[in-house]
């Protein structure tokens, strides 16, 4: 993290370098693969955003929710209804999904945050189960487990012409753009003063309270923003498949967000994308030979929480640091002396009261 590179554009750290490489791969990759992989990549990106939205509430604020599938499903259904019943375009439907899930997240948050931290997770589990029951039984509206297929309208890009979501290349770039903008926005939030309060609540709720922060309000903000982005991910997943069903609201889908974040790396946002690539990529690959992949995923989850709690991103960091120590990564030479910017030299600063 401390390695810096001088470029004509300014000083870049290794972290920036990694992101630039990722961006280049993301843009070049679609021109080298076939339609199926493009489809898979777009759906993985949508799931990655879903995982990252969970990371915002769990990784940064410390609130474990198992109800994220509710927002994912509501977003997908809201966009479906906006397009099908109200003739809205792609962008308006996306906005509807985003705002509606934000509102619903405030409602759920108001109930769940009242309960103690351990009760919070159980209340969110119950809410996803109620949503699942409701969606399965109200077949007239939701199509039940058979779901609803959506005829997606065309989309006009100024100066480029008309596109449809059925064009794999356009679909991929559309999803990539929305996911990238969302990740930047979430990254901006978690590094803002509000984001710092989120982390303080995660690390020491008592101290945050003592310093006069209204912890409940901040938790509610984190929960709603996180829910809104999960809803956006649901909209994107619907745009990729053109399909939504009651199985969007399931405990297993909620668990997916947890798995992506844990496997990728907690409190990193980008980690959830890696987690989604690894898990979804692997399950697509493995399901060719065996139908036991939930067993493998469950085992992977156990392995991660026990042996690699920092996830893939933590593993990358360790490998990079190990390589750096042996001088295998070139960079400026001051890496030994400069302190790690992430390691707060005095994290547990005592609060002094002068009475």
């Amino acid at each position: 993290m401390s390695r810096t590179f001088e470029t004509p554009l300014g000083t870049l750290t290794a972290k920036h370098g990694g992101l630039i490489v990722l961006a280049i791969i993301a843009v070049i990759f679609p021109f080298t693969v076939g339609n199926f992989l493009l489809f898979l990549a777009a759906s993985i990106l949508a799931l990655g955003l879903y995982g990252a939205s969970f990371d915002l509430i769990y990784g940064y604020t410390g609130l474990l929710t198992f109800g994220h599938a509710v927002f994912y499903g509501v977003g997908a259904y809201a966009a479906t209804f906006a397009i099908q019943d109200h003739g809205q375009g792609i962008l308006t439907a996306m906005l509807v999904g985003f705002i509606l899930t934000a509102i619903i997240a405030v409602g759920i948050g108001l109930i769940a945050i009242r309960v103690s931290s351990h009760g919070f997770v159980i209340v969110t589990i119950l809410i996803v189960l109620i949503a699942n029951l409701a969606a399965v039984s109200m077949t007239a509206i939701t199509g039940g487990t058979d779901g609803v297929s959506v005829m997606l309208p065309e989309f006009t890009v100024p100066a480029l012409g008309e596109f449809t979501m059925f064009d794999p290349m356009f679909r991929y770039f559309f999803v990539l753009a929305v996911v990238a903008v969302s990740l930047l926005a979430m990254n901006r939030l978690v590094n803002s003063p509000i984001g710092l309060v989120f982390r303080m609540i995660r690390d020491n709720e008592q101290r945050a309270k003592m310093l006069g922060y209204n912890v409940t309000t901040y938790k509610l903000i984190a929960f709603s923003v996180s829910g809104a982005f999960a809803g956006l991910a649901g909209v994107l997943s619907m745009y990729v498949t053109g399909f939504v069903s009651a199985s969007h609201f399931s405990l297993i889908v909620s668990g997916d967000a947890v798995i992506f974040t844990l496997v990728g790396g907690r409190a990193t946002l980008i980690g959830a994308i890696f987690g989604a690539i690894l898990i979804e990529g692997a399950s697509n690959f493995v399901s060719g030979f065996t139908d036991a992949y939930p067993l493998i995923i469950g085992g992977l989850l156990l392995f991660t929480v026990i042996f690699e709690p920092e996830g893939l991103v933590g593993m990358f960091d360790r490998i990079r640091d190990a390589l750096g120590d042996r001088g295998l990564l070139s960079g400026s030479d001051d890496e030994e002396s400069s302190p790690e910017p992430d390691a707060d030299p005095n994290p547990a600063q005592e609060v002094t009261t002068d009475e």
Partner: protein
Amino acid sequence: MALESDLAVAILNGVTWGLIVALIALGLNLIYGLLEIVNMAHGSLYMLGAVIGWFAIDATGSFAAALLIAPLAVGAIGMTVERGILRPIEDDLTITLIATFGLLLMFDQLALMTFGPGTRSVSAPIAGTVSYAGISYSLYRLVVGVVSIFLMACLYLFLFRTRYGTWMRGVRQDRETASALGIPTSKVYVFTFGLGAFLAALAGVLLAPIVSVGHLMGLDILAVAFMVVIVGGLGSLRGVLVASLIYALVENVSTLFMTPVEARILTFALMISFVLIRPDGIFRGASA
């Protein structure tokens, strides 16, 4: 008259179902109260009880054998899981919760692979109905209700009248002091998890003739068990029993007026709303 007898049957169903739900949820709450582990795999332990019970009946032809084999096997699985997987990470509530979610995925998948995707039925070891005042009711369900009461009484006596039960309550109140006084805390932990798993599996075998046995039955009961634990109060055993009975009565009586799914949605919504009034459960802050 028809409505009255329907109502009586619904109430009886509610009471027996509530008692057996309480048996499952008590195990969940015992594990939470002592180890501070929210066991997402609890429903799967109940499911494993029913599935292993089905295999035992298939092999031996005896329901009594299943009633013995399945809970012991699942209890052993529970003890192994506590010792081998949860022990190293038991300090972090969220991490243990996620780990038990991983176990849920694995148990359900293992059941799917050995038991197959469908559901199967087990015939009740006690046939016949009891008729009283124009109401006839399944004898087996009554026996299940009575057995549940008996088991809960045993659990109560064990917790409050034996030395090991006192240890368990002591460890729960203050782990360090208990450990300093020579109570083998790690053994108590393993035993508690095993006991919770044992109770869940026992309920699974007892319910096998009433519900259909399948690899997905755990998820269903998990929702119910979590709900009564939240409404009854995390860690409160008395609250769990009361919440289970209320839940089962409301759900069974409302099925007289609506479809089972609607009844369940209504019941869940009512119980969740209750949380708004009393976030700490029925007996606020009570510990036993």
